[in-house]
């Protein structure tokens, strides 16, 4: 049997992900070279971490594997850009701890329970409107609409701005996709203000618009506080210091991105999977006690972020490989979530399996996803609403996946209602 040439495996090129997750490459790496040196044509190269156990160990060791040192993406970043675009996700303890605690109390399981009713109302409204038309785009009409509406309610932005914010969030992560990338005039506008793309989060000029939006909202809450996340951010104090304007707008940018894109993509991949395997949706329908576990399995399967980076702060040996201080490591959540040592027969989607060890929200450690409970609640809410209406769908036209080495999702998923109208 021919074996895959490991040195030829490519994981950074966004084209690799267009037709689907390159599971064969990850499978080969997990088996033969789990701490794999991956060269880069436009960078120093990186260690591809593909085993669940290694990803968890590294995530829980922020002292030796930093998020702050060189940020968390493939790209190499200069000092100037880091100063402009650093947010909580690109800090280490104790700085991270200070920032995280400002927002944590709004995202606990108890708080998320309070948002459940609103989320269900949003899901019902969107499903009503879409299903009436018989066929529609599951991504555009449901997934792009729901998480942002749940988020703006917590965040404190006007609901009327939801679609605008969703559009900006899309343009943040889709810089590599010609169909969704920011328009040239947005790049020109940023340059006219002295910002090159690399100065901005995701190297996207949409971030600058988001900064402006966030600044206006923060100013408004400073003048007139309310009971919302933005007010919490502008009022947060640490030993007499408040967040600077730059910290504030980056915080908002992070929350808008994280509160939208990842959940949106999980809802899309989840529905696609249930259409491909309708027996799994039927199973859930017959036994709703499976729902909690099914949410974990949907999330495992969806893994909406392929990878984040860490940078080694000292020399470390891992599975016999000598990692040097300063080396870049890419943590492939998409591989860890299909690690056969943790998930037997991983490429089988099975709502009855124990998927609780999935690392969609990170491998643990301080950067564990702030929105984990909010995301779970939304997946549960949307698919419960689908089941409550007896809805079943079929794919109704060509689907398209996002061209990205970062965000795992669909650009379009045309569906037709086949039951439950």
């Amino acid at each position, binding site marked *: 049997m021919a074996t895959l040439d490991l040195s030829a495996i490519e994981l950074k090129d966004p084209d690799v992900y267009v037709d689907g997750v390159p599971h064969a490459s990850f499978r080969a790496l997990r088996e033969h070279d789990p701490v794999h040196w991956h060269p880069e044509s436009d960078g120093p190269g990186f260690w591809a971490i593909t085993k669940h156990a290694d990803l968890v160990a590294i995530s*829980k060791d922020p002292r030796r594997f930093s998020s702050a040192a060189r940020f968390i993406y493939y790209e190499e970043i200069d000092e100037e850009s880091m100063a402009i675009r650093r947010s909580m996700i690109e800090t280490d303890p104790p700085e991270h701890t200070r920032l995280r*605690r400002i*927002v*944590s109390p709004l995202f*606990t*399981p*108890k708080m998320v329970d309070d948002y459940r009713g609103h989320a269900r109302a949003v899901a019902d409204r969107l499903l009503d409107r879409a299903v009436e038309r018989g066929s529609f785009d599951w991504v555009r009409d449901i997934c792009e609409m729901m998480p942002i509406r749940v988020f703006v309610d917590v965040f404190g932005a006007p609901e009327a701005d939801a679609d605008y914010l969703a559009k900006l969030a899309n343009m943040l992560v889709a810089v590599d996709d010609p169909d969704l990338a920011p328009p040239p005039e947005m790049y020109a506008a940023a340059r006219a203000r002295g910002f090159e793309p690399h100065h901005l989060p995701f190297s996207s000029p949409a971030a600058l618009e988001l900064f402006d939006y966030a600044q206006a909202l923060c100013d408004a809450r400073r003048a007139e506080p309310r009971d919302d996340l933005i007010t919490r951010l502008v009022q947060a104090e640490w030993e007499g210091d408040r967040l600077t304007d730059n910290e504030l707008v980056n915080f908002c940018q992070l929350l808008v991105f994280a509160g939208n894109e990842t959940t949106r993509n999980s809802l899309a991949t989840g529905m696609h999977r249930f259409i491909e395997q309708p027996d799994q949706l039927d199973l859930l329908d017959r036994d709703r006690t499976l729902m909690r576990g099914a949410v974990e399995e949907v999330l495992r399967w969806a893994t909406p972020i392929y990878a984040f980076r860490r940078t080694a702060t000292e020399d470390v040996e891992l599975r016999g490989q000598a990692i040097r201080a300063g080396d870049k490591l890419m943590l492939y959540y998409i591989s860890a979530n299909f690690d056969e040592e943790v998930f037997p027969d991983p490429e089988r989607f099975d709502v009855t399996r124990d998927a609780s060890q999935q690392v969609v929200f990170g491998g643990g*450690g*301080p950067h564990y996803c702030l929105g984990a409970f909010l995301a779970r609640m939304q997946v549960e809410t949307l698919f419960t609403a689908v089941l409550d209406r007896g809805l079943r769908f079929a794919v109704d036209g060509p689907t398209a996946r996002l061209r990205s080495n970062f965000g795992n999702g669909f650009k379009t998923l045309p569906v037709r209602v086949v039951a439950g109208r």
Partner: protein
Amino acid sequence: MKVHIVIDPATCVGIGKCEELAEHAVELGDDGVSHPTAPVEEELARTLCEACPTGAISIGEPAE
């Protein structure tokens, strides 16, 4: 046997997993840090230690 759990305030970032698993024994405060409010069965204490994403929880003294 019931034991006290200890939550390291320097490590906890207020994720809330512990509160979800043991609402009667842990409370996440407005300071963004989880606080133990009651002793728990030793087995639950071990579950909490394992479940904490940041490893901030440890088992303390036995509760009288």
